[in-house]
C-alpha cells in the first residue's frame, strides 16, 4: 500500500470566464452604462466583453500514501483553485483526478460557524459540515473542547468569543476530523503564536501517523518543517516538483523572475488603482541602477508609479516590507515611520527610499508593496518584488561576517573600562 498513489491528477485545467465591466463613480454613468448594456444584450445576447482566464493549465502529479505535500506558489498561481477542485467544490474544465480514501478538506477555519449559536452547538454543526457523523462528534467532543481550551464558555454564543477563542475552537473541530487524506489551505496563518505551534504539532502528527496530506502555504518555514515533498505552481502550471528544499528554492526563483517584469501587468493587486506601481528599481547612493546590493553598502529603492490624482492630497502612506525565505517578516520601510514626510504626487514619477547602510544578512527577500492616499488603499501587491542582497563586508574589516552570527548586523562600538568600587 505504501507506494500506491492515493491521489493522481492528470492534465487538470480550469478555465474561468471573466466579465469586464467599466467602473462607475456616479449614478449618471451607471445608468447610462446599464441602459447601453441592456440594449446590447437585447440585440446580441451579451452585455459585456468576456475574457478567458486559465487558473490551471495541464497540471499532473501523483501523491503517494503517507506523503505530506506542500503546494507553494505566489498569489494567483492557482493553488486555491487546485484545492477547490480536489475537494469537489468546483469542477475542472478538463482533466481527471482519482482519489482513494476518505478526504477532508479545510479551506477555511470555522466554515459554517454561526455567531448566534453556542460553542457546543457550533462544534456539532461544524463537524457535520465537515462530514463527521453525530456519533463521531460525540465521541471526540471532550477532546475537541480540551484542545480548544474553551471549557468555560461552551454555552456562550460564539459571537461573544474573542477572535482567538473562535479560531481555536474552529481549528479544534477540524483537527479531530481523522481523515485518510487531509487537504489544508493556509489555516495555520491564524491565532496567536502559541496556538500556531499547537496546530503545527497537530499537523506533524498527521504526517507521522502515515496519513496523506496536501498543504498550501506561503510560510516557507512551515512547509520545510512539515512537508516531505513540494509542488511549485506559477501561473497555473507546475514549475517544479521534488523534495521540499528544492521546491522552496524554486519558489524563490519564481519570485526572482518578477523583478524584471514590470508591475503594471500584475493582476493580483488590491486597491482603487488611482495610484498604481509600475516598477521597482534599485540604485546605489550615487543614483546608478544596480541589480544586487552588498550588505553594508547603501541603496535607494525607487518605486515607480502612475497616478490619476490631480488635486490636493492630505495624507499618503507608502510602504514595503521584507520577508526572508522562511516567510518571516524582517522589517518594514514606510514613510509614516519617519513622521509622514510630504510626498507630492505626479502623474508619473517615483518615490525613493534611501537605506544608507544595509544591515541584514545576504539573501533573497520577498517584498510586499503598499500605498494608500487619504486613508484609501490605492495599490497593494504581495510578493511585489525581490530584494536581493549579497553577503558583504559590513564592518569594513576586510572579512565577511560568519553566517552563524544571526540575521541582523548592528553597528557597534566596544571599549573597556575600569569600574571603581
Amino acid at each position, binding site marked *: 500500500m505504501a507506494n500506491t498513489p492515493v491521489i493522481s491528477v492528470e492534465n487538470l485545467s480550469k478555465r*474561468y470566464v471573466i466579465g469586464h465591466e467599466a467602473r462607475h463613480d456616479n449614478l449618471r454613468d451607471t445608468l447610462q452604462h446599464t441602459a447601453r448594456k441592456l440594449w446590447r444584450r437585447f440585440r446580441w445576447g451579451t452585455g459585456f466583453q468576456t475574457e478567458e482566464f486559465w487558473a490551471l493549465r495541464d497540471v499532473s502529479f501523483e501523491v503517494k500514501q503517507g506523503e505530506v505535500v506542500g503546494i507553494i506558489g505566489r498569489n494567483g498561481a492557482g493553488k486555491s483553485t487546485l484545492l*477547490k*477542485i*480536489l*475537494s*469537489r*467544490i*468546483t*469542477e*475542472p*474544465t*478538463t*482533466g*481527471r*483526478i*482519482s*482519489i*482513494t*480514501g*476518505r*478526504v477532508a*478538506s479545510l*479551506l*477555511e477555519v470555522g*466554515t*459554517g460557524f*454561526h455567531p*448566534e*449559536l453556542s460553542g457546543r*452547538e457550533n462544534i*456539532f*454543526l461544524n463537524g*457535520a*459540515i*465537515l*462530514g*463527521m*457523523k*453525530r456519533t*463521531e462528534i460525540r465521541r471526540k467532543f471532550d477532546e475537541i473542547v480540551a484542545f480548544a481550551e474553551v471549557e468555560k464558555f461552551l454555552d456562550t*454564543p460564539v459571537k461573544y468569543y474573542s477572535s482567538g477563542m473562535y479560531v481555536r475552537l474552529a481549528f479544534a473541530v477540524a483537527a479531530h476530523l*481523522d481523515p*485518510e487524506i487531509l487537504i489544508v489551505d493556509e489555516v495555520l496563518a491564524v491565532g496567536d503564536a502559541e496556538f500556531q505551534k499547537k496546530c503545527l504539532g497537530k499537523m506533524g502528527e498527521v504526517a507521522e501517523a502515515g496519513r496523506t496530506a496536501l498543504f498550501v502555504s506561503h510560510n516557507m518555514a512551515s512547509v520545510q518543517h512539515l512537508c516531505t515533498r513540494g509542488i511549485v505552481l506559477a501561473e497555473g502550471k507546475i514549475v517544479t516538483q521534488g523534495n521540499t528544499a528544492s521546491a522552496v528554492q524554486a519558489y524563490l526563483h519564481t519570485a526572482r523572475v518578477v523583478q524584471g517584469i514590470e508591475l503594471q501587468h500584475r493582476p493580483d493587486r488590491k486597491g482603487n488603482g488611482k495610484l498604481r506601481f509600475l516598477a521597482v528599481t534599485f540604485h546605489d547612493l550615487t543614483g546608478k541602477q544596480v541589480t544586487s546590493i552588498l550588505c553594508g553598502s547603501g541603496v535607494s529603492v525607487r518605486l515607480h508609479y502612475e497616478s490619476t490624482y490631480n488635486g490636493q492630497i492630505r495624507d499618503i502612506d507608502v510602504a514595503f516590507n521584507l520577508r526572508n525565505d522562511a516567510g518571516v517578516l524582517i522589517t518594514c520601510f514606510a514613510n509614516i515611520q519617519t513622521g509622514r514626510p510630504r510626498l507630492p504626487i505626479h502623474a508619473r514619477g517615483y518615490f525613493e527610499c534611501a537605506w544608507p547602510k544595509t544591515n541584514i544578512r545576504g539573501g533573497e527577500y520577498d517584498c510586499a508593496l503598499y500605498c494608500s492616499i487619504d486613508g484609501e488603499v490605492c495599490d497593494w501587491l504581495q510578493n511585489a518584488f525581490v530584494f536581493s542582497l549579497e553577503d558583504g563586508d559590513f564592518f569594513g574589516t576586510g572579512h565577511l561576517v560568519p553566517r552563524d552570527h544571526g540575521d541582523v548586523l548592528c553597528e557597534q562600538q566596544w571599549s573597556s573600562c575600569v569600574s571603581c568600587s
Partner: protein
Amino acid sequence: MSDVVENPPATEPPELVIEAGRTEAHYWRDLWRYRELLGFLAWRDIKVRYKQAVLGVAWAVIQPAVQTLLLSFVFGKLARMPAGDVPYPLLVLAGLLPWQLFSSAFSGAGSSIVGNANLISKVYFPRLIVPFSALAVALIDLTVLLVLTVPIAACFGVMPTWRLLLLPAFILGALLIALGAGLWITALTVKYRDFRFITPFILQIGVFVTPVGYRTDFLPNWRDLLAFNPLTGVVDGFRWCLLGGTTEFYVPGLMISFAIAAVLLAGGLWYFRKTERQFADVI
C-alpha cells in the same frame, strides 16, 4: 465516505473520480449520507430564528392569527363570499395552513443557496441538501400550527375525522411544489440576483390567486382557471381533510394541479442539477 470509519480498514477504500462534466454517479447516495447535515442545517435555522426576539416562538402563531382575521374580514365580511356551513375564520385558517407551508418552504428554498454562500464556496456536499433543509424548517412550522388548529376547529364544532390521515399526502404535495419553484429561483439567483426580488412578488400575488380566503366549489366558472395554480389542489385537499364532508373535491382540477406541479418539480431538479456544479464559481 464516512462509512470508512465504522468498517474495518480492510475494506477497499472508495475511489473517487473527478472529471469535467461528470454527473457524479454517487450523487443520490451522497445525498443520503449527508442527511445528518440536512438535519443540522434545519436545526440551525430554527434555533437561530427567534434568538434575541422577546416574543420568540410566539411569532410563529401571531402572524397566521392576524392573517386569518384579516382575510376573514376582507373575503367574508367585505366581499361576502359564501362559506358553506363552516365558520369563515375556520375556512380561512384551513386554507392558510398550506399557504404558510408553501410560502415559508418556497422563500426558504429560494434564498437557500445564496444564503449559505460561505458553505457553498468552501465545502463539498450535495447542494440539494440546502433547499431540502429549508423544507424541513417549513414542515416544523406547520406542525406547530397544525397542533393548534385541530383543537380550534373542535371549538367551532368541527371534529377531526379519518380524513385527517390523508393530510400528509397534501403536505407532501405543498412541499414538492415549493421545492420545484424554489429550486428554480435559488439556482437562478446564484447567477442573477434579480430573482431575489421575484420571490416576495410571487408570494404577494399568490395569496390571492390561491384560494386561501375563499372556497373554490362556490366559484364553478373560475375553477378550471384556478386549477392552473398547482396550490389550488393542495388547498382544497387541506380543507377536505380538516373540515370534513362539507367540502367536496373537484377531480379534474386536482389533476391539472398535479400535472403542473410535476412539470415544475422535474424542471427545477433538472436545472438545479445542471447548474449546481458552477455554483462555487459564480456565487
